[in-house]
């Protein structure tokens, strides 16, 4: 059954006519074209589809789009502001924390939510926070380095 879905994504309001049983991941990728959100396992066990909802990290593959109407959704496309990269994006790029890039959007958004809650985390806390985001390329070393570097000099 189709319905009118109203979503607030990356600072914009969207109104679309779509199936009721769609996950947020499907709506973001297929209806709204935010393909930066990745589908890695579709069952909540890899973290590639992570987006921010009201600032918290959600698995969009296990979130009903209909259930997050009226909430503030941020995807990787909405993280840079006025053409300026978020410090985490900058750190990931410069530290070599990106290889194939498939886990990157989910990883960065998870890290963003985490740093917002814990601006000066330990290495162990950082590893725990991103432990639901699987990366097969980097061995996580440079990812952890990048996250820890963001608030290092402040």
């Amino acid at each position, binding site marked *: 059954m189709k319905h009118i879905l109203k979503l607030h994504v990356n600072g914009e309001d969207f109104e679309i006519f779509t199936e009721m049983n769609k996950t947020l991941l499907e709506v973001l990728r297929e209806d709204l074209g935010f393909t930066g959100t990745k589908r890695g396992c579709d069952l909540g066990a890899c973290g590639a589809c992570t987006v921010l909802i009201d600032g918290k990290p*959600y698995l969009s593959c296990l979130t*009903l789009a209909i259930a997050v109407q009226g909430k503030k959704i941020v995807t990787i496309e909405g993280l840079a502001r006025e053409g300026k990269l978020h410090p985490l994006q900058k750190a990931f790029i410069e530290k070599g924390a990106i290889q194939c890039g498939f886990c990157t959007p989910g990883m960065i958004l998870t890290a963003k939510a985490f740093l917002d809650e814990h601006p000066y985390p330990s290495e162990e806390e950082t590893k725990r*926070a991103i432990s639901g985001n699987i990366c097969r390329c980097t061995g996580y070393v440079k990812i952890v380095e990048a996250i820890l570097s963001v608030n290092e000099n402040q």
Partner: protein
Amino acid sequence: MRLPKFEYLEPRSLKKASEALTADPKGTFLLAGGTDLLVNMKHGVIQPKRLINLKAIPHLNYITEGKDGLRIGALTTLHDLASSTLVQDKYPVLGQCALEVAAYTHQVMGTLGGNLCQENRCRYYNQSVFWRSARAPCYKVGGEICHVVRKSKECHSTYRGDMAPVLIAMDAKVKLVGWMGNRTIPLKRLYTQIGKKPLSLRKGEILKEIFIPSPSGQTLYLKWRLRGTLEFPMVSLALHLEKNGEGNIDRAKVILSGLGTGPLEAFEIEKMLKGVSLDDGVIEKISNQMVKEISPMRTSIASPNYQRKMAGILLRQGLEKFKS
């Protein structure tokens, strides 16, 4: 994997939700965090006609402390639980336990109520439609066989929740709201120990609140899994001990997860612990008893033999922590 089609409801109150649930109890499912439910829907092991989104109901996300204990709204997320300074200060084991559930995102999405009401798991059940098509349907999906124990007359699916053992060990009670009225039962009675239908909820009943009496004694939670995150427990153990002035144990609670069709209470161990003072000999003897008291089935990739050994080891570790 797409979700099957369903009707979606956002009632504004629990009463309305309960009414909707009562109208079609078999076809209606409650949605809280969704981390368990949506996976089961994608796997096609449940096919709800209707989903009721409880997260849309206001005032079910709270943590308050009264004279007699702590009240937690069923829709409180595991993340909120772990982040609560009240919990961290007075009921630290609850926060620690919440952090053991899956990973960060699951804790943000998942609710305490949802965690307590999560479905039982089995390696033959938590699989896709394609995967299961290689075998006859099992009891859990309405079939006539158990693939774990071939000659069994019943389903051996296993309870693998993290929060329930700790809360049962702390004598938590749960408030259930139904169209017939409310009732409060000890949390342990929420679990039927029946694989096919693990929860004792009556028609239209919804878990509203978890009550934890003011702590007496100490509680800890030990979880065993291959990796340090994501996974359900291969085996986990909540241990609650109350000691008297002489250091002897007055009261002991030992609750396990991952070993049976519901959270498992180790009665023999509890009996053995009563009245003793923890020394190396006692700990040795009692933890060796654990192996004899449990009989897990091969419902996950962990071997039952190893699970039994680990249950004993976790108990030993727990008791040793309390010794000092």
